[in-house]
């Protein structure tokens, strides 16, 4: 174990998730099972040591819940949009590959943004440039320059929402400055 240790506080989200999965699989949330699950989670996290996820150190549940609801709504909208496009436009659909520069440079944020925009209407990540944190997004049904602008804005908005939920303080400050300016 030559890697640098991480604090138990930083590991806590992972442990909570592991305990939740354990209890969900047993379908038993009794205290004994919770305790045993926590024990197994700690042992697994210590023995099978993966590179730690660099969390931003803050998580705003107040912002996360509305975001989850909006996200679910967008997933529904995306599915119906694809259904409509498949039936109505079919072979005539036009697309675009758009480069979007993200604000954050943390891997977690880029990954989370990529996941979110892969599931919201009409966008899919084709390529990621980690060095400049640029996402190359394939947009469905992009017909004009305005569509490109709105696609780019949607991606940046998704990233802004994620930064408000779990970005680092520096990212949040930068975001506030950008919005205020």
């Amino acid at each position, binding site marked *: 174990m030559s890697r640098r240790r991480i604090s138990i506080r930083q590991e806590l989200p992972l442990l909570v998730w592991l305990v939740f999965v354990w209890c969900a699989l047993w379908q038993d949330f009794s205290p004994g099972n919770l305790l045993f699950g926590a024990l197994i989670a700690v042992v697994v996290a210590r023995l099978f040591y993966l590179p730690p996820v660099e969390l931003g150190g803050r998580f705003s549940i107040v912002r996360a819940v509305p975001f989850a609801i909006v996200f679910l709504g967008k997933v529904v909208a995306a599915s119906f949009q*694809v*259904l409509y496009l498949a*039936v109505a436009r079919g072979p005539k*659909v036009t697309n675009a*590959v758009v480069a979007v520069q993200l604000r954050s440079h943390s891997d977690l944020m880029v990954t989370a943004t990529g*996941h979110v925009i892969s*599931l919201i209407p009409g966008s899919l990540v*084709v390529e990621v440039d980690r060095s400049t944190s640029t996402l*190359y997004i394939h947009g469905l049904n992009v017909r004009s320059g305005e569509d490109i602008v709105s696609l780019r804005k949607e991606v940046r908005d998704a990233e802004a929402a994620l930064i408000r939920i779990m970005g680092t303080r520096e990212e949040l400050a930068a975001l506030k400055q950008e919005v205020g300016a």
Partner: protein
Amino acid sequence: MNPEPSAVDTIIDTVSAVFMVVGAVMSLGAAIGLLRFPDLMSRMHAATKPQVLGLFLLLASVGLQLRTWWVWPVLFVAWIFQVLTVPVSAHMVGRAGYRTKHLHRELLTTDELEAVVQKAADKKTADRPDSGRQDPDKRAAHDDGPADDGAPA
């Protein structure tokens, strides 16, 4: 199952029935998209998004039908695994598809990745039908029509 008032039962049954039918329609939508979209990338949209919503609706209907609270965490875990894995596999397939040129360029209104790949930052790529990113010359629009570079098999 718990003895419940039949009115509530009927409502739950109706909601879960609607969920099941809509979830099945989502699968059908994915299949229609697969058949009707012209290139790999747009087919990928059809393959990923309805899948996530369809599974969500169907798992919700399972939870509603079983009427016990302890199944919801398992269903939630199953759905979260789906949400986490589907974009990754779609991204991998899309990346491979882009790199192996399974892309109908005449269907793209703009392609900013290509400019980066070519190291030629031409800002006016909009509405320019490119013949392929292997072609380094930037003279003008090649009028070679809809080249069928999507069928290399």
